[in-house]
């Protein structure tokens, strides 16, 4: 060791370290300043295989890479896009899909019926554990593709499912196929607007029903853009225009989906002009957004719906008057204005305003702030002396739950505490065991724009998100009847009748409906964000 001059060694090491650190990166040629491309901020998508993607980030990227069978107009009615026509039979059970001819995947393969059928079979097959597999559960034969572990946590493995393909999917010819549902469903066309129903090219498969290695990172779609290079995890996805695209051609030549871990970091970049669109400005930055962005700070409706559930297994909330009183004790206006700074609006119905069939203020008096009446009802019903509201602490709910509790305290004169469980899973486990966790904070974002997508999962007896155990056979029947109805209008009538039952039963207290609060840079124009928090890629354009 050179004992004479250690600091020279240290200085040398430091110089080398800095050099190494400095040289490692760079080289990202920045030509975006002049070109016709935009940078849109997202979070890291969980998955990009369409049948495995159930969150907004993945859906946004997929929307650029794929061309859907149906899309929705301003009234949320389905319109065919990649499909020439989608026609049901008289019973709304067998749906015939005719594809527009001449479409290709970005690798040149023609889009055929097989591409849809194979992709959907893969998505529905239980052992593939695809996140969006439940979208296929209305198709005949879905149950045969599932299997469950016979002894739960025991050593036995789940047996292989009975079938590998959905019996309800039949190819007629290269551009026509039929979908047979296990029960009539009027709204099926709307369901197919979800990203789980995209096709996959032949290149996706290693063998039948097995995805090729690395396909997800270099996914190929039938959309207006194609992936340039690979999915750079946690960093970015770059997509560029497909030449001679047959469908609607977007106005921009390419999109960089820049991945952010933190929305506040994304907002910093939006203000600095490094990202062109941020679809969700975080609540911490909302107060300065108008000043920072001026008229480039916008709001638009989305499908988010927040509410507080009354567990039916807890005796103290059995009395309807108690539930009414608690709901009336909450000043929704104050919460949406003070806590959410106007980024959410008070909920006055049991479904979101974005779906067809929504009626304003169905909840009526029960959702109107009225502390005097609340107190009267509560005292008459001899409601519990202490109320607890449980929420998941990792979801930014503390502030509004505490505020709600304070309002309940003030209105009803009883004690109210917010109880944070670390994660949503903890809350669910306790609710499933029927532990006394008090009221439950919950929310819902729709999958497809139908009233049924709120009524079914949230309030029907077997609903996937009915964690509070509400069950009313009359309600279940109306929802099912609506799904079977001959026309959409008939369906809506039944569903509205079902909603009327909810007003009488008050299984939950609706609190707020969400809005998109988004912003964009001076470089872009015509930015629209839809109900599912996706940027409209066909309208956005670069300012000259």
């Amino acid at each position: 060791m050179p004992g004479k001059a250690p600091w020279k060694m240290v200085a040398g090491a430091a110089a080398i370290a800095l050099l190494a650190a400095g040289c490692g990166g760079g080289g990202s040629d920045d030509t975006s300043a002049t070109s016709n491309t935009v940078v849109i901020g997202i979070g890291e998508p969980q998955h990009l295989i369409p049948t495995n993607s159930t969150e907004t980030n993945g859906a946004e990227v997929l929307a650029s890479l794929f061309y859907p069978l149906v899309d929705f107009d301003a009234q949320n009615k389905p319109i065919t896009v990649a499909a020439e026509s989608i026609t049901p039979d008289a019973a709304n059970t067998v749906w015939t899909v005719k594809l527009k001819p001449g479409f290709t995947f970005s690798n040149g393969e023609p889009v055929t019926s097989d591409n849809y059928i194979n992709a959907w079979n893969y998505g529905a097959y239980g052992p593939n554990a695809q996140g969006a597999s439940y979208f296929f559960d209305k198709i005949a034969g879905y149950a045969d593709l599932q299997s469950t572990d016979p002894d739960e946590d025991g050593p036995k493995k789940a047996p292989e499912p009975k079938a590998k393909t959905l019996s309800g999917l039949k190819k007629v010819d290269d551009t026509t196929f039929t979908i047979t549902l296990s029960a009539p469903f009027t709204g099926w066309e709307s369901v197919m607007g979800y990203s789980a129903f995209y096709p996959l090219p032949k290149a996706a498969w290693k063998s039948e029903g097995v995805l090729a290695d690395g396909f997800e990172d270099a996914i190929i779609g039938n959309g207006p853009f194609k992936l340039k290079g690979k999915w750079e995890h946690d960093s970015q996805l770059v997509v560029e225009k497909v030449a001679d695209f047959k469908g609607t051609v977007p106005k921009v030549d390419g999109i960089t989906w820049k991945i952010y871990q933190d929305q506040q970091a994304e907002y910093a970049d939006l203000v600095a002009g490094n990202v062109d669109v941020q679809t969700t400005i975080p609540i911490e930055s909302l107060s300065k957004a108008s000043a920072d962005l001026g008229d480039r700070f916008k709001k638009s409706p989305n499908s988010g719906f927040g509410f507080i559930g009354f567990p039916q297994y807890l005796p103290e909330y059995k009395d309807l008057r108690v539930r009414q009183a608690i709901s009336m004790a909450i000043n929704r206006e104050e919460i949406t204005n003070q806590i959410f700074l106007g980024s959410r609006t008070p909920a006055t119905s049991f479904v979101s305003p974005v779906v067809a069939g929504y009626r304003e203020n169905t909840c009526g008096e029960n959702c109107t702030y009225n502390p005097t009446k609340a107190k009267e009802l509560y005292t008459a019903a001899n409601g519990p002396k202490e109320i607890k509201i449980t929420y998941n602490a990792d979801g930014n709910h503390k502030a509004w739950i505490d505020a709600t509790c304070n309002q309940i305290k003030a209105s009803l004169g009883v004690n109210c505490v917010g109880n944070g469980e670390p994660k949503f899973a903890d809350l669910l486990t306790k609710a499933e065991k029927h532990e006394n966790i008090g009221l439950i904070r919950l929310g819902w974002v729709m999958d497809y724009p139908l009233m049924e997508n709120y009524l079914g999962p949230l309030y029907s007896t077997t609903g996937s998100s009915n964690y509070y155990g509400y069950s009313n056979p009359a309600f279940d029947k109306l929802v099912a009847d609506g799904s079977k109805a001959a026309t959409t209008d008939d369906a809506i009538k039944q569903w509205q009748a079902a909603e009327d039952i909810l007003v009488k039963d008050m299984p939950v207290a609706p609190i707020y409906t969400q809005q998109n609060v988004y912003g964009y840079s001076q470089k872009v124009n015509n930015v629209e964000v839809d109900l599912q928090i996706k940027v409209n890629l066909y309208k956005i354009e670069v300012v000259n």
Partner: protein
Amino acid sequence: MFRYIVRRLLQMVLTFFGATFLLFALVFANQKDPIQALVGERPVTESQRTFLTERYHLDDGFFTQYWYYLKGVLTGDFGTSLTGRKIVDMMSDAWPVTLRLALIAIVIAATFSVSAGVYSAIKRGGIFDNVSLLLTLVLLAMPIVVIAPLFQLIFGIQLGWFPPTATRDATFWQLLLPAIVLACIVIAPEMRVTRTAVAENLRADYVRTARAKGLTRMRVIWVHVLRNSLIPVVTLIGVDLGGLMAGAIVTEHVFNIPGVGFNLARAIRTEDGPLVVGFVSILVILFLFINLLVDLMYAALDPRIRYE
């Protein structure tokens, strides 16, 4: 010297296994429902739960799971994250940027704290000494969760001197601001320790002797005094590495750097056991090597220290 290094390396193997075992046990104890954590608030279908549980051996006992993991690590396979990505791929994506960030931070911190520490020791009680004492106290009092967004706001957005965020293949310039933030958490102790050590050594007999021999003041301070004062500082820098990694969790989050800290935070949030253990295993190895390096530096700095 050679035998000493070999012995240390052998000890490292033991430490490594002990540490990963402990880690695995902690993660295992914390794991409640990783499948639900993965999908957030969405309902999970029964079938999906069944097959994911099987795929990731989640229903096996602790020792079986640890055995699977160990078997993988010994064959160079760190396993698959619950998100389906290979952990090796995730690590090769994440480590380079974090190492660069940490290196820049260490160099900035060491350079600044040693030179400022020496200067304030020489001018003990002067304006620079007092002002720097005050500043380091302020820095010490501010946690990184405050410093990071504050610096981003002031220097990144309002003044616009630095880019407010960085990416995986960030340039030196993009990493500079996050590195300064990281350096801030270690500058204060390093500078105070340097100052104390130098101030103490300035009064030592050998300094008087050196001065009496007619050596220049500069040479006495920068060659004789500093070298003798560096031992505690070097130790501190080695230990600070851990602090830097912990700080990286916050810094990388704020500046959007997809590095180790970010991956760790995500893995803990989603109860992704294999991912946590994979990243921390590498951290453990790194820590062990840095400390070996620090020990070897002692011998270079102080000839009286000999390793047998």
